[in-house]
C-alpha cells in the first residue's frame, strides 16, 4: 500500500496533485458561481497555444504560458465589454484562436509532438523538483490573491451591481481574478493536461455546492475535496496503471456521483419521513375526534 511513497517522482507527483487539486477547486468556486465554467475550458486551450510557442522559442514554459494566458484574459475582457459580442462568444473566439496557433506551430515543427501530447494530457510523473517549486510558488501566489480579495470577490460574485455601488473596484478585482485563473490553469497544465483542467475546476465546487448553502463552508469543502482527490487520483493511478490526470478526474467524478446519489436518497428519506409523520398525525386526529 505504501509502495508509491518509495519513489521520488511519485512523491513529487502526489504533492503537486494535492496542491493543484486544492487551488483549482478554490478558484473553481468563483468560476462556477459566476457561471464561467466555459472560461476554464477555453483558457486551458488558449494556454496550450502559449505552451507550444514557449517550447518552440525555447522560453521557460511557466513564463511563456503565463504571459500567453494573461494576454488571452485581457483580450477576452476587452472583447466581452462590447455589447454586440458578449462574454461567451469572446471566450470562444479568442481561446480557440490561441489554441489554433498552437496547432499550427505543431504542424510546422513535428519533432515536438511528444511534448505537446504531455501538455494536452498531462505528464505529472515527469515533474522535476524545480517544476514542483514553481508550482508551489504559483499556488501560494494564487492563495494570497484569494485571501486578500476574498470580500470583494464574494460580493462581486453574488451581486456585481451592488458591489459597484458600494465602492468595490469591480474591473480591477475581475482583472486580477482572471489573471489568477490563468495562473491556475498554467499550474494545472502539467498535472492534468489541457483536456482535463475544466473538470478539476468545476467538479469539487459542484460537489461542495451539493453539501452546503454557506459560502465559506462551500469553499473549504471544495478545497479539501480538490486536494484529497488530487492526491488520491495519483495514488490510485500507480496501482491502476492509467494516466494520473484522468484518474484524478475520474475520482472527482465518482465523488460527485456518490454525493448526488446520497442527496437523492436523503431527500427521498426526508419525503418518506414527512409522509409517515403526516399519516401518523392523521391517525392521531381520527382517534381523538
Amino acid at each position, binding site marked *: 500500500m505504501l509502495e508509491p511513497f518509495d519513489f521520488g517522482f511519485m512523491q513529487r507527483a502526489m504533492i503537486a496533485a494535492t496542491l493543484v487539486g486544492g487551488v483549482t477547486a478554490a478558484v473553481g468556486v468563483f468560476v462556477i*458561481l459566476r457561471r464561467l465554467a466555459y472560461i476554464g475550458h477555453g483558457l486551458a486551450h488558449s494556454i496550450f497555444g502559449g505552451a507550444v510557442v514557449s517550447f518552440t522559442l525555447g522560453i521557460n514554459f511557466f513564463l511563456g504560458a503565463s504571459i500567453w494566458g494573461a494576454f488571452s484574459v485581457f483580450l477576452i475582457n476587452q472583447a466581452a465589454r462590447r*455589447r454586440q459580442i458578449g462574454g461567451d462568444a469572446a471566450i470562444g473566439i479568442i481561446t480557440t484562436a490561441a489554441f489554433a496557433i498552437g496547432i499550427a506551430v505543431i504542424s510546422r515543427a513535428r519533432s515536438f509532438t511528444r511534448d505537446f501530447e504531455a501538455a494536452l494530457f498531462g505528464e505529472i510523473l515527469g515533474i522535476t523538483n524545480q517544476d514542483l517549486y514553481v508550482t508551489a510558488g504559483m499556488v501560494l501566489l494564487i492563495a494570497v490573491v484569494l*485571501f*486578500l480579495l*476574498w*470580500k*470583494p470577490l*464574494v*460580493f462581486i*460574485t*453574488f*451581486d456585481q*451591481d*451592488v458591489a*459597484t*455601488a*458600494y*465602492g*468595490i473596484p469591480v474591473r480591477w478585482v475581475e482583472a486580477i481574478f482572471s489573471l489568477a485563473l490563468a495562473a491556475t490553469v498554467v499550474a494545472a497544465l502539467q498535472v492534468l493536461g489541457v483536456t482535463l483542467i475544466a473538470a478539476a475546476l468545476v467538479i469539487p465546487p459542484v460537489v461542495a*455546492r451539493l453539501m*452546503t*448553502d*454557506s*459560502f*465559506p463552508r*462551500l469553499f473549504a469543502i471544495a478545497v479539501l475535496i480538490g486536494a484529497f482527490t488530487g492526491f488520491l487520483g495519483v495514488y490510485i493511478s500507480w496501482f491502476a496503471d492509467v494516466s494520473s490526470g484522468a484518474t484524478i478526474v475520474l475520482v472527482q467524478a465518482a465523488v460527485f456521483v456518490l454525493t448526488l446519489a446520497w442527496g437523492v436518497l436523503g431527500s427521498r428519506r426526508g419525503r418518506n419521513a414527512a409522509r409517515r409523520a403526516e399519516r401518523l398525525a392523521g391517525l392521531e386526529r381520527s382517534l381523538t375526534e
Partner: protein
Amino acid sequence: MATVRVGELVRLDGVALGYDGEVALRDVNLQISPGELIGIVGPSGCGKTTLLRSLLGETEVYAGDSSVADNTRVGYVPQVETVDWNFPITVEQVALLGSWRTRRWLPWTSRAERSRARVVLSQLGIADLADRPIRALSGGEQQRTFLARALVRSPDLLLLDEPTSGVDIKTRHEILHQLAALNHAGVTVVLTTHDLNGVASHLPRLIALGEQTVLADGPPSEVLQPAILERAYGQPMLVVQSGNETYVLPVPEEAPGAHEEPPARPNVVNVIRRPDADDA
C-alpha cells in the same frame, strides 16, 4: 461640477444621464434635503432605476452638474428580481457584505461587525433567520435581508429599487412602516415604485418621470394629476380622491367604434364620504 448647498444632500442641475453613450434622462433638476422620504414613479423603462443609480455615481453624466454631499454614506437595495437566489449564502452573510470595507484585506469578519449585523437583523425582525440560506426566504424576508445589508453601513441616504414589488399587502405595509421609522430616525430615503395607490400616494414627496425627463416634483396632491400621469404613462388616468387617500386608475379604452365624446370634466373624482360611512 456643481456642489450641494448648505442643507442639501443631493443636487442635480440640468443633468443628462444614461449608460454607454445613450441618454436615458435629460434636463433633470433635483434637490434632496437630509431627512426627506421621496418616491420616484413612472412607467417601466422611464429611467427610475437610472435616476436612483445616478445618486450612486454609477451612470454617465453627459450634461449638467450632479453632486452628493461629501461623506454621505449611501445604502442601496436592488430589485430582488436581479438577485441569484440559489447563491450559497445565509442571511447574516448577506448583511455582512455591507461592511466589506471594514478590514477589507481579511477574509473574516470581526466580532463587532457580526454583532452590528445581528442588531440590524433584530431591528428588522429577522434575527432568527440569520443562519438561513437566502433561497429559503419569503418575499418580505428577502427585502429585509437586503435592507439589512444596506443598514449595516449606517447610511445617511438609503436608495431602494422597487422595495415592495412581489410582496403581499401585509408585507408591503410592514416594509413601508420600517422605511418610515428609518426616515424618522434621520435617514433620507429615496425609493422607486410602480405602486401609485399602495405606496406612492402615501409618501410626502414624489418625482414623476416620463418623456425622458422629470415631469413633476412635489407632494402627491400635485404630482398625481391626470395631465401629468397621462404624459408619463401615455394613457388617460382617473384620479379619485377620498378624504386623504388618492387612488389612480387607468381610464378604460373605449371599444372600437364606440361613440367618442370629449370629457365634460377633468378626470378627478372627489369622493365625499358620509360621516357614518364606516358604520355602514
